[in-house]
């Protein structure tokens, strides 16, 4: 599966380029101007980055499980790189959400359950990267990172539920989209999500290739040092 991602990166990259261009056009030209103004257009990429964040976090957990079972270094690299992208996309989600919230809600931040869950998620996967940062050459810490990725993923629904249940100080869930979206908006959103997903997969493929090269360099070095 990882091989495919590395091999097909040209195709993935090209389709990402095309779709991102299309989605830019759709977001800024095709989609109608909404009542809240042009700032609403942030929403399309906000949703797309959020979806990508969750996708890569799921990949962290999946890679971790496969690493524990198969003990193959490639899955450790997959988890590590997926977490980097996950944190990147969650950060973008938080920033885009904040940019949108400022004119709409007149605040940069609010303790809405979805925002809080996303923020805690960000903390969890930054912690994951901290574990991985010290794990170079330590199989034990790598396995710990894998376990942490799995446990963190399983914790997400519980965290979200607990944040929703918390009664004090949290605004009502404003983000809930009311009813259906007009078709052009829905289509723009879908295209943006697909474009961003392709872009994410392309970045992941490139990142995995770098890891592969690193491992090859390492192996060559060892062959020279330990003939």
């Amino acid at each position, binding site marked *: 599966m990882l091989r495919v991602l590395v091999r097909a990166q040209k195709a993935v990259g090209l389709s990402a380029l095309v779709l991102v261009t299309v989605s830019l056009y759709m977001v800024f030209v095709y989609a109608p101007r909404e009542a809240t103004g042009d700032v609403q257009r942030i929403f399309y990429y906000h949703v797309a980055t959020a979806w990508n964040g969750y996708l890569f976090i799921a990949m962290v957990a999946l890679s971790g499980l496969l690493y524990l079972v198969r003990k193959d270094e490639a899955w450790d690299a997959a988890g590590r790189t997926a977490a980097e992208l996950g944190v990147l996309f969650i950060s973008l989600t938080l920033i885009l959400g904040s940019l949108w919230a400022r004119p709409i809600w007149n605040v940069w931040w609010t303790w809405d359950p979805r925002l809080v869950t996303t923020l805690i998620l960000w903390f969890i996967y930054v912690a994951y990267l901290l574990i991985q940062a010290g794990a170079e050459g330590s199989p*034990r810490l790598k396995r710990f990172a894998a376990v942490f990725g799995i446990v963190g993923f399983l914790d997400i629904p519980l965290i979200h539920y607990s944040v929703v249940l918390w009664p004090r100080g949290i605004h009502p869930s404003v983000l809930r989209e009311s009813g259906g979206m007009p078709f052009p908006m829905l289509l723009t959103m879908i295209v943006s999500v697909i474009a961003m997903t392709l872009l994410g997969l392309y970045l992941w493929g490139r990142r995995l290739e770098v890891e592969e090269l690193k491992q090859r360099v390492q192996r060559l070095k060892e062959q020279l040092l330990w003939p």
Partner: protein
Amino acid sequence: MKAYLRAVLALAAKDALLERKSFETLIATASFALLLAVVFHFAFDIASAEGARFFPGALWTAILFAGTIGMARSARVDEVEGRGRGAALAPVDRSALFLGKCLFHLALLAVVEAAAVPVFAAAFALRGMALPHLVILGLFLGTWGFAALGTLLAGATAGERATGLLLPVVLFPLLVPVILGGAAVVSAGVTGEVTAATGSWLRLLVVFDVLFTAVPALLYESLMEV
């Protein structure tokens, strides 16, 4: 099954015996928790009318801070000269190592809480608790989840250089349901305002406890080898 339980108890008893030699971990953990009661009392300048509102959150914060230190220390006990491996050689599933440690941590935290609750009640000028049973239940369920995840993460980071730094950073975000749930149930127990949400909190805590006892037990063997 019987042999498995006996091994879990033997492991927990070994940790208790080690602790009884010096009481180092217990004294450090408990005194830090009590110290926090004093710090919170002055830092937040609690008036008696607000005591009941801040008591649950402050108590849980102290339990988490002090408990994290205690568990990090106790996990290191088995790292000295790799002696924890002796238990890994025993003819018992290695998840017993996790459950034994978890049981010991639960007992350690129970002792710390038994000392901390009255002191926090005094520091926050609490005028009694409406439903003490609910307070104890909330503390127990929250502590169980905390001990389970704490044992897993403290054990995994114990052999590493940056343990003290890493453990709270990796542990606390995962504990959000325990912190919120534990505080909500203890709060309901103090004020006596039991609502439908209290039941949801209790269910959430039970799910958290069972999930994060079972999953680490399953993953512990692959985590600990080498």
